[in-house]
């Protein structure tokens, strides 16, 4: 680690500007999406923990007088959302084979399933016998599912944006498809959050 090392290694350390300067750096956007999702996961984790604490502190949970919840509709909804995660994965496979049409098909199907989920969610909201301020369970129910619903909506918009962009010729191909990957990762994330949420709010 003294002068001699310095001398001998110097030649190899010097990399000319032509060799490596002014190239576009590799694409780190997927890393960025994943890092951002850490933050997203933390906000849900915070809300879930708050929910569990409310629940642990309450003498009875859900508080007495909370109307029974129907499980059929949310169950179907959950199945649709989970299935959509498998559907959207096919789009990834398709685009890696340069199959833009196939990708569009799978993305379109995912978008439709997401929309059904959201409509189902709204339908449930209108038919529940408790409102936002009925009691603590009701409030957490609406805020948690609503916040998740916003994320589904955002994921849906991402998917639609990808579909819109895919209309441009060669916007996506087997090499360049960041948008598709990002939307897919986001969709999986939203799906996993829903599974936890479903377990917390409906099953446990």
């Amino acid at each position, binding site marked *: *680690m*003294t*002068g001699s*090392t*310095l*001398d001998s*290694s*110097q030649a190899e*350390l*010097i*990399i*000319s*500007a032509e*060799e*490596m*300067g*002014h190239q576009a*750096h*590799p694409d*780190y*956007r997927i*890393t*960025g999406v994943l*890092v*951002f999702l*850490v*933050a*997203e996961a*933390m*906000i849900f*984790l*915070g*809300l879930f923990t*708050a929910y569990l*604490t*409310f629940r642990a*502190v*309450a003498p009875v949970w859900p*508080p007495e007088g909370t109307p029974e919840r129907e499980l059929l509709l949310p169950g179907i909804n959950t199945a649709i959302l989970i299935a959509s995660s498998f559907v959207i994965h096919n789009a990834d496979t398709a685009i890696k084979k340069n199959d833009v049409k196939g990708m569009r098909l799978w993305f379109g199907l995912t978008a439709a399933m997401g929309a059904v989920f959201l409509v189902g969610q709204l339908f449930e909201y209108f038919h529940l016998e408790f409102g*936002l*301020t009925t*009691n*603590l369970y009701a*409030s*957490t129910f609406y*805020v948690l599912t609503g*916040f998740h619903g916003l994320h589904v909506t955002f994921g849906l918009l991402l998917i639609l944006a990808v579909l819109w962009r895919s209309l441009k010729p060669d916007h996506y191909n087997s090499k360049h498809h960041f948008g598709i990957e990002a939307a897919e990762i986001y969709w999986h994330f939203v799906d996993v959050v829903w599974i936890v949420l479903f377990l917390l709010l409906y099953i446990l």
Partner: protein
Amino acid sequence: MTILTPLPDNTQPANLPPPANWRKYFSFSHDHKVIGIQYLVTSFFFYLIGGALAAAVRTELATPASDFVSPELYNSLFTLHGTVMIFLWIVPATAGFINYLVPLMIGARDMAFPRLNALAFWIIPPAGILLMASFFVTGGPAGAGWTSYPPLSTMSPKAGELIWILSVLLLGSSSILGAVNFVVTIWKMRHPKMGWNDMPLVCWASLATGVLILLSTPVLAGALILLSFDLIVGTAFFNPTGGGDPIVYQHMFWFYSHPAVYIMILPVFGMISEIIPVHARKPIFGYRAIAYSSLAICFLGLIVWAHHMFTSGTPPWLRMFFMFATMVIAVPTGIKVFSWVATLWGGKLNLNSALFFAMGFVSMFVIGGISGVMLAAVPFDIHVHDTYFVVAHFHYVLFGGSVFGLYAGIYHWFPKMTGRMMNETLGKIHFALTFIGFNLTFLPMHKLGLEGMNRRIAEYDPKYATINMICTIGTYLLAVSTFPFIINAVWSWIKGEKAVANPWSGLTLEWSTSSPPPEENFETEPVLLCHPYAYGKRPQVPPSGNLDPATSPLST
């Protein structure tokens, strides 16, 4: 170990094109250097507002009676003072330094996501203006303290409180978007020859800061979302009469806000670790100890939050855990202080304004660290919680620590950022006034707290009057101390002596490019030849920064 040193750079400042026009600082620029300066200037502007609010608070407290402003306005003044200082000054100012320094120091041309970076900055001015606008809504601004605990916050005037929540949510989002950039940039974009242990310490600290932001800020957002529902639609998340629990808010709030104190101090730790070796002309003592202790602080910082809640009915076994964990965190912190002192020890000190502020930082931060460990002891904290002792503690770490460190950073990197030197005489006057004013304001508060004076009150027992008067006089001195700095900064930026590329003979990569650096940072790809802190271990870098490979002693 790889041996690294800056690329011999033969660009002379005089040959550079004149600094691009000032308009770029008002644009949606993607250049991390422009964004860094935008952060710094904007946050300094809010610092002045926060300072004015503090002066108003201290003016009220000059006398025991509540006679200067109404009690409601007093509440709003200290609430906005805390909010502005934390969310609009220290957090964005450190983000500014991280933005400016990290790509230069790791030899990158920009951050990983320049557009996202610009977006993160441009959220701040509207959020700040929004917060200030709450002075003009009915009921006035939020008045429940920067902590905004329910039920106090849900009972205060709704408009102001809502604006407060919105503004903090926006600033938190900005912080998260910034952190995504810090983490990915440091992780992925280091110079190909720069291993983890060759990184300048600012980068380690920024990485730890980024991770803390990503893990903790979202939880604050969660708390504020629930709080806003309580406030607007009358849910009862934090309202015991509806089955809710205000303690849950406190947990969520401190799960962010304890890490937040490290978000505000870690980047400054990093900056001090750069400044001290450069001006002491010695290798940093314990590079790895400093680097890894940042990671230790990052981890421990996430598991100590309930030391803010020792008097909130936290069960004794839990208090034991948090007391112990909090005291443990003083260890990595102490390691850093030890390393800085050891670096200074026997150094050939270049006693300029940057080093004065850095040494001011070390000494003042130690006092805050000691009072922190005192507060971590449950039996002691129960007595002084919510008194001026706590106020003294956090001002020693946040003002004596973060603000002194930020000033040190400005004096140190001003030549790089602007291409001009700052005036040393004014800098030393600034330091002397700040140091005296700061201690006059905050040292006596320890005594006030020990004698039982509560924080956040406008009216107090006359027996505290003398000490309070001293604190208020100190505050005015602090206000005055800002003028030499502002004059110095503005005047130097316009007319100061031209700076060479490497005025301090530093070894980190930012000094190997011109002052200010060109767009994309480096004219030619930087080359790493020695460790960033190898001072005195090899021929000195000439202060001209002109390290022509042909003539430089480095390239023999």
